[in-house]
C-alpha cells in the first residue's frame, strides 16, 4: 500500500488526512492519529522494558533487552518467565479494554459509558463469584465470567432495543443493570464461605498477578477473530456521532449499526474481563485520552488500544512497585486514577451544560 497525495491541488481526502490506496480500495488516515499512535507505541515499549527491569531483583534495561533478544542471560528466569507473561497480558488486556470502551462510548454517545459502567463487568463479576463460591474448578471461572458478561449485555440489549438502543436510555438501562448485578454479587458473596468470598473479592478487583500466557492467548485470539469486524467498526464509528435522522438521511441504518458496534464492544469487554477480572476504568479513560490527543470527535480504535495498553502496563507496574513489597492489584490502581478522572468529567460536563 502506498501513500498517494492526490494530484488535485485542494486535498486528497479530508484536511489533515492522508489517503492510502490499493487498487479500488482506499482508507483515510488522520495524520495526527498516526503521530499519536507512533508516540504511544514508543512509550508503551519503554514502559514494558521499565516494568521488566524494575522489581526484586532489579535488572538493568540493557540486560532486559539482551534477555528478550534470546541471547541467554542469567536474568532469563526473572525477565522472560516471571515478569514478561504478566506484562504482555497487561498490554493486550489494556488494548482490548481501550477498544471495548471506544465502541461502547461511541454507541452511547457518552464519555461516561464503558463496560464497567453499563453492567458488562458486573455480569462477569456475578458469574465469576457464583463459580468461585460454589467451589467450581478454577478453569470454569473465566468461561463463567464470559457467559455472565454476555448475559448482562443481552439483558441490556433487550431493555434498550425497544427504543432503538437510543443513547440516553442505553446508558440508563446499563447503570440500572450494573447496580442490580452488583447487589446480587454482594448477596452471593455474603452467603458464601468467607474464604471463597475473599477469593471472589480479589477476582472482582481485577489483577494480573499470577496470570500470563494462557489469558493473553484467549484475548488475542478473540481480537484476531474479530479483526474484520473491527476493521468495519473503525469505519462505522464515523456515523455514530450523528443523530438518527441525519444518519438515515445520508443512507445509514443507525439502529443496526449501533447494535453491531455495541455487540462487538460487549464481546471484547466480556472476554477480557473474564480473563483478568474487573479492572475498572481503563475502558473508560483510554478512549477519552486518545480522543483528546488526536483532537477528533472520536478516537481511532488503534490509538485507543495503544493508550489502553500503556495505561494498564503502567498501572500494573505502579501496583507492583509503589508500596513494595506490598503488591496492589492493577484494578486498585486503575480505580485510583479513574475515580478522580470521572469526577473531572462530571464537573466539566456540568460546567458546559450550565
Amino acid at each position, binding site marked *: 500500500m502506498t501513500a498517494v497525495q*492526490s494530484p*488535485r491541488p485542494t486535498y486528497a481526502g479530508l484536511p*489533515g488526512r492522508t489517503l492510502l490506496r490499493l487498487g479500488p480500495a*482506499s482508507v483515510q488516515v488522520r495524520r495526527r492519529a498516526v503521530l499519536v499512535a507512533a508516540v504511544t507505541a514508543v512509550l508503551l515499549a519503554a514502559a514494558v522494558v521499565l516494568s521488566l527491569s524494575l522489581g526484586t531483583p532489579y535488572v538493568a534495561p540493557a540486560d532486559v533487552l539482551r534477555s528478550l533478544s534470546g541471547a541467554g542471560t542469567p536474568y532469563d528466569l526473572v525477565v522472560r518467565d516471571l515478569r514478561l507473561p504478566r506484562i504482555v497480558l497487561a498490554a493486550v488486556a489494556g488494548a482490548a479494554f481501550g477498544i471495548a470502551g471506544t465502541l461502547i462510548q461511541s454507541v452511547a454517545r457518552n464519555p461516561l459509558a464503558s463496560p464497567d459502567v453499563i453492567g458488562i463487568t458486573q455480569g462477569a463479576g456475578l458469574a465469576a463469584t457464583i463459580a468461585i463460591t460454589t467451589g467450581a474448578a478454577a478453569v470454569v471461572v473465566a468461561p463463567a465470567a464470559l457467559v455472565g458478561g454476555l448475559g448482562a449485555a443481552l439483558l441490556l440489549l433487550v431493555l434498550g432495543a425497544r427504543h432503538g438502543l437510543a443513547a440516553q436510555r442505553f446508558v440508563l438501562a446499563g447503570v440500572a443493570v450494573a447496580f442490580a448485578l452488583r447487589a446480587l454479587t454482594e448477596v452471593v458473596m455474603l452467603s458464601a464461605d468467607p474464604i471463597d468470598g475473599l477469593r471472589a473479592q480479589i477476582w472482582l478487583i481485577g489483577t494480573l498477578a499470577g496470570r500470563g500466557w494462557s489469558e493473553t492467548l484467549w484475548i488475542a485470539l478473540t481480537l484476531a477473530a474479530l479483526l474484520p469486524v473491527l476493521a468495519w467498526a473503525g469505519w462505522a464509528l*464515523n456515523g455514530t456521532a450523528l443523530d438518527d435522522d441525519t444518519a438515515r438521511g445520508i443512507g445509514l441504518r443507525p439502529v443496526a449499526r449501533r447494535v453491531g458496534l455495541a455487540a462487538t464492544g460487549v464481546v471484547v469487554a466480556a472476554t477480557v474481563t473474564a480473563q483478568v477480572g474487573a479492572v475498572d476504568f481503563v475502558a473508560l479513560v483510554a478512549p477519552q485520552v486518545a480522543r483528546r490527543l488526536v483532537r477528533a470527535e472520536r478516537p481511532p480504535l488503534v490509538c485507543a488500544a495503544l493508550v489502553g495498553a500503556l495505561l494498564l502496563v503502567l498501572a500494573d507496574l505502579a501496583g507492583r512497585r509503589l508500596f513494595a513489597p506490598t503488591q496492589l492489584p492493577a484494578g486498585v490502581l486503575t480505580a485510583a486514577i479513574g475515580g478522580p478522572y470521572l469526577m473531572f468529567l462530571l464537573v466539566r460536563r456540568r460546567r458546559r451544560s450550565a
Partner: protein
Amino acid sequence: MNRTPDTRGAMLSTRDLTVGYDERTVLDSLDVDLPADAFTVIVGPNACGKSTLLRTMARLLAPRHGTVLLDGTAIRDLPTREVARRLGVLPQSPLVPEGVTVADLVGRGRQPYQRWWRQWSEQDSAAVDRAMAQADVAGLADRPVDTLSGGQRQRVWIAMTLAQDTEALLLDEPTTFLDLAHQVEVLDLLHRLRAERGRTVVAVLHDLNQAARYADHLIAMREGRVVAAGPPREILTADLVRDVFGLDCVVVPCPVTGAPLVVPGLTAPSLARRAGTVDAAPPVDAAPGVDSAPGAGSAPGVADPARPAPADPTVPAVRPHADDAGDPRVGSYPSKGH
C-alpha cells in the same frame, strides 16, 4: 387540489399516506405531488403535520399505510443507500458531533457513495469542494462546527446534504433559530440551487411571506390535510390564510418581489394609533382585512396598511422566479377556488 392523479412531473408523491404517533393520527390518506425542478414550500399552523409529511417523504418516519413514491417507485422498496443518493434530507435540529470540523461534516454527505474498504475517491473530493463552494463555507473548512454562528452552521449542514449530490433536497424548517439576515441568506441559497442547479427543493417554513417570496409551489396544510397547493401568486389569499391559520389579514403585493405579502389585520385597535403612519386610518370597525377579501380585483395600494410601499414601485432587486414574465407589481390575487 390534486390535479394530477398520476405522478408524472412529480419527483416525490404520496398516495393514501397515513402517518401517526401511537394513538394520534397526524396525516390521514394524504395524496400530495411535489413537482420536480421546483422550490416547494409547505406551510401551516403548528402541529398541522407539515414536518411529519416531510419526514415521512424523507423515509425518516414509517407510514401506517400508504406509500411515498420517488420518481414513481415506492421509497420503501429502495435500499436506503440508493435513496440517499437521490434525496438529501436536513432534519430540523441536527446534532453537531463534538469537535467535528466543517470539511469533516460535509464529507459525511459522501457516505452513500462509500464503503469501509473504499473510503474516499476523486468524486468525493470534487463533490465536497463543490458543495462547500456552493454553500459558501469553503473558507471555514478547518473550523470546528460548534464554534460557528447559527447561520454558518446551517450553511454547513446544507453543504453536507449538497455533497450527497442528490436531485432533491428536503429541509425541515431550515430557518428556525436564525436571525432575519441569516434566514434570507439560507433561503437565497436554496433558491439558487433551484434556479441555477435545477435541484428540486422542498422546505417546511413558518414564515408565510418568505414562503411566498421563494416558493414556486406552495402547499398549505391544516390538521393533516392539504388545504391548497399551487403557485403562491395563485393560491395565497386572505381567505386561504383565514382557512389555514384562522387569522384575518390583508394580502398585498410585496413591494420588492411582487409576491403576495400577508399582513395581519388590525387585531388590537390600539395598534393603529401607535403605528402613527396612517392619518386617515379607517375606523376600527372597518379594519382592513376583516371580513373583506382585499385581493378581489383591487389594485395594489388600495388595501390600506401597506399603502406607503407600493406607492413607490422601485425595481425589484431580487425576484424569486427567474422565469416569471409578468410584472409582479401589478395584478390581483383572487380568492381561492379558481
